[in-house]
């Protein structure tokens, strides 16, 4: 056991765990569930599940236009959720929080509106080599259509973003789109260094916070990012709800994205004027229960306290890195220091293919992901087609890490490493 406050954070995590009904279930083989795939999606606390059911059982109604009681209540709950999300990210106003389906849609929204409006042939978009497909493919499409160019910040041997040539790379860049925390290597990208440089170069910055929002205290004003994308389902909320933070001036200048009900102010057969922020970007009936569920998730996280969330993650990750490093034939990827990474550990073990590894772990009740984790280009760069990935969240404990290690040792025996 190493630095940090593993014992105290772990005691709380044991209590937190009890709030998550799924974690009390067992596999078909009767094994307790060791859920280590929160980077793919998090489990949900009872309070979030109940908030959603309670919406459907007590005040399910369409929002924004209803005069009757339950419609009023639904509207209030939906907008109160937006207020909670705005506070969670420390946005200046609820107008700057748009509800989307997920981080992917948040990024695509910016791509289709701000991107197509502002990027032209010869402009450059700067990404990192860490990016998830959701923060590569939209920009590839945009580049193909506009003639803009994609550039990449390189990585060092530990998967950290190299900043030496940042200023040179920023020349001619209109948009910097980069992950806040890598979902594969765990790398925390130093936005506080990149954002000012990007702004100095005249670029707008979009941060993909899918893996950061659940784990770090994210303050969009302190970070000074222009856009910030997040997925609810990775931060204890239901599936189908995400958020896009955008600075008001940018959002106001942007054309609408999806068109339809609720995002309009006046429609005639000939012409339409659009609604105010943030509704201008929310066309059609929203995922009302999802948004209300996200509000409950954010409440839950704030009750846990994001400082504790991060402390526990560092403690757990330190412990996991230490134990994984001691497993024979195991290769770990990403930064060596837990402080420099999120709660994600990607690895390979001898010639055991990650899919076989995940299957063997599954038989032990240990849920890890195997594959490219939607970062095929990064894997190719590392000379890999796949890795196994364990990822941690508020309900994981040191005992979960021990279970992972035991299962890995079993896999090593089966494969006679």
């Amino acid at each position, binding site marked *: 056991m190493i630095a940090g406050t593993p014992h105290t954070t772990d005691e709380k995590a044991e209590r937190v765990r009890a709030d998550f009904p799924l974690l009390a279930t067992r596999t078909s083989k009767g094994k307790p569930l060791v859920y280590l795939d929160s980077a793919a999606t998090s489990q949900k606390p009872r309070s979030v599940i109940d908030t959603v059911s309670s919406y459907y059982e007590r005040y399910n109604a369409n929002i924004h236009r209803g005069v009757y009681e339950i419609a009023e209540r639904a509207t209030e709950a939906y907008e109160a959720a937006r207020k909670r999300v705005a506070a969670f990210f420390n946005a200046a106003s609820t107008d700057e929080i748009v509800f989307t389906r997920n981080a992917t849609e948040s990024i695509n929204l910016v791509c289709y509106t701000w991107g197509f409006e502002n990027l032209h042939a010869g402009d450059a978009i700067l990404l990192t080599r860490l990016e998830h497909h959701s923060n590569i493919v939209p920009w590839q499409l945009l580049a193909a259509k506009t003639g803009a160019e994609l550039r990449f910040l390189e990585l060092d041997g530990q998967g950290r973003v190299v900043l030496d040539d940042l200023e040179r790379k920023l020349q001619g860049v209109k948009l910097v789109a980069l992950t806040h925390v890598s979902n594969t290597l765990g790398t925390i990208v130093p936005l506080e260094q990149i954002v000012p440089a990007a702004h100095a170069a005249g670029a707008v910055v979009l941060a993909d916070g899918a893996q950061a929002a659940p784990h770090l205290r994210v303050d969009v004003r302190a970070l000074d990012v222009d856009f910030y994308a997040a997925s609810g389902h990775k931060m204890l909320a239901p599936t189908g709800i995400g958020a896009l933070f955008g600075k008001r001036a940018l959002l106001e200048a942007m054309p609408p994205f999806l068109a339809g009900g609720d995002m309009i102010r006046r429609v005639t057969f000939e012409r339409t004027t659009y609604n105010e922020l943030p509704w201008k970007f929310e066309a059609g009936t929203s995922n009302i229960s999802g948004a209300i569920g996200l509000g409950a998730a954010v409440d839950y996280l704030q009750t846990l306290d994001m400082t504790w969330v991060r402390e526990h993650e560092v403690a757990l990750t330190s412990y996991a890195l230490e134990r994984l490093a001691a497993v024979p034939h195991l290769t770990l990827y990403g930064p060596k220091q837990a402080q420099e990474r999120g709660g994600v550990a990607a690895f390979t073990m001898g*010639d*055991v*293919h*990650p*899919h*076989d590894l995940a*299957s*063997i772990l*599954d*038989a*032990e009740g240990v849920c890890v992901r*195997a*594959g*490219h984790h939607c970062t095929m280009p990064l894997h190719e760069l590392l000379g890999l*087609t*796949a890795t196994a990935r364990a990822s941690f969240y508020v309900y994981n404990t040191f005992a979960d890490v021990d279970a992972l290690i035991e299962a890995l040792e*079993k896999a090593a025996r*089966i*494969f*006679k490493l």
Partner: protein
Amino acid sequence: MDELFYREYILEHYRSPHNYGHLENPDISVEDDNPLCGDRIRVDLKVEDGRIADVRFEGKGCAISQASASMLTDAVKGMKLEDMLRLGKDEIMENLGAETLAAARIKCATLGLKVLKAAAMRALERAVEAEGQRP
């Protein structure tokens, strides 16, 4: 999925696959992958009188996909193309001792079969074309 699945002989096929490599001047060569996990297999066939005269495969991926392909190439050598096309998923699974395999992994187990069938199909099409071109 049953951890017992990774039996001795499966690991042997994985680490020392049979019929591995390629054929010189194959009649047919087909490659495919399983996009979900990145497994990839290429099969070369020599066909004589509607039978698989020789076969080689090359690939990368998990033990399940590679061992399955290895065992399958053993099994189909000398087989009639038509019979080969009749091979089903269940036979593969039984052959592998993998009846209880999780759905996501079944695609791994059957990737070799899929590629072999595609190759056999193409061989049959060629035969029909050749037939059609006779005066």
